[in-house]
């Protein structure tokens, strides 16, 4: 909760809380996400504008085996409650599957150790076409020097293949002091090999596009968006015949 207050004071307008699921443990159930209203009685207002801050929920699946991906196709209700779904592939085959066929919004790129596989152009291009974004973490880089080297080398090798498109930089901050402001994160993007415009987009427009991608995943292909409004149904029913009458009269 402290982390969120620091976030808001620094100037972020939307925050996603991450829940990581690792498949090494045998029994794993997907828990319902923590609703943001439990954390804050009233969400504070963004600095500079008059809108409330959005708190979203996010699920990360650490997959090291193709059979784990079946969980995504299952119709478990709890998965639908998350706004953004991310996958963290550990092998090249899984990276290929994640980029081409899996129904996710983000593909996490490992920053804490040397990548066991090289990126190839075809799956990366297919992911860009599908609207899937690649995610880089920056908190390990702040904490440790060897992780910083791995982060930069992995990030630059990704940049050379995807030319800086579809990148999202996020923090895996566990303490409020590991967070950095949005301007600083965009400057970190310069270190990763992005140009200045791409780095700013990595913090702002790409993130918003990811959230929209998550919303289209919830609705049917982004065309129909159903919202439950139990009380207003009666009003709508009475409104409809009135419209029909108006049409027949006109």
């Amino acid at each position, binding site marked *: 909760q402290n982390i969120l207050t620091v976030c808001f004071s620094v100037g972020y307008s939307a925050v996603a809380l991450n829940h990581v699921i690792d498949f090494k443990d045998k029994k794993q159930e997907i828990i319902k996400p923590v609703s943001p209203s439990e954390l804050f009685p009233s969400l504070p207002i963004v600095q500079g504008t008059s809108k409330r801050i959005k708190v979203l929920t996010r699920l990360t699946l650490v997959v090291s085996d193709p059979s784990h991906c079946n969980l995504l196709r299952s119709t478990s209700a709890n998965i639908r409650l998350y706004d953004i779904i991310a996958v963290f592939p550990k092998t090249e085959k899984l990276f290929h599957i994640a980029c081409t066929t899996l129904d996710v919004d983000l593909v996490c790129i490992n920053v804490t150790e040397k990548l066991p596989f090289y990126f190839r152009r075809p799956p990366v291009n297919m992911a860009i076409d599908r609207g899937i974004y690649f995610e880089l973490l920056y908190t390990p880089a702040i904490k440790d020097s060897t992780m910083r080297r791995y982060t930069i080398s992995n990030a630059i090798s990704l940049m050379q293949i995807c030319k800086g498109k579809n990148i999202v930089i996020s923090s895996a901050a566990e303490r*409020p*002091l590991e967070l950095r402001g949005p301007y*600083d994160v965009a*400057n970190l993007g*310069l270190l990763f090999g992005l140009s200045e415009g791409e780095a700013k987009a990595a913090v702002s427009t790409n993130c918003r596009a990811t959230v929209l991608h998550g919303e289209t995943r919830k609705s049917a292909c982004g065309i129909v968006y159903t919202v439950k409004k139990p009380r207003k149904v009666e009003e709508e029913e009475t409104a409809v015949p009135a419209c029909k009458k108006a049409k027949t009269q006109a």
Partner: protein
Amino acid sequence: MVRFKNRYVLCEVVSEDPRCRQCIEDRALGLAVRDAIARVHGDYGLACCSISFTVKYLNAYTGTVLLRCRKDSYRLLCSALPFVRYLESRAQRYPCFLNTLHVGGTIRTCQKFLIQYNRTQLLRLLQNCTNEEERQCIQKSLLSCSLTEEQSQSGDEEEDDDTE
């Protein structure tokens, strides 16, 4: 016209410990930033950035810092600022981080931005105010914010609210 062009980077020191802000010194901050540049960009980066590197302005009440560097090397400085993790002064380490607010070419532009920023911060504090006196204090200082006034006035008002 041959002139050395500088970039002024305006940052805010954010930390959890309330004592940290009172112990901010320009020397300690300069050392911390140089150390971060050395860790990230090595000897070359440190040498490039320290050609004209100084801490121009420091406000201990609000934690505002103004750094100066050459225009050619301000990117190295800006990309190394996220790596500042703590400030060390008088043998005590205070974990903190620097939040970059604005990069400008002259001190005057940074000052204008700072006045606007302080105004929005005071507005935010106004919302959280419970005391009627504080409210009037803040409103008075909001109306009196301008370029010719000294910024220590708005800094003092904010400090009163922080200690409350």
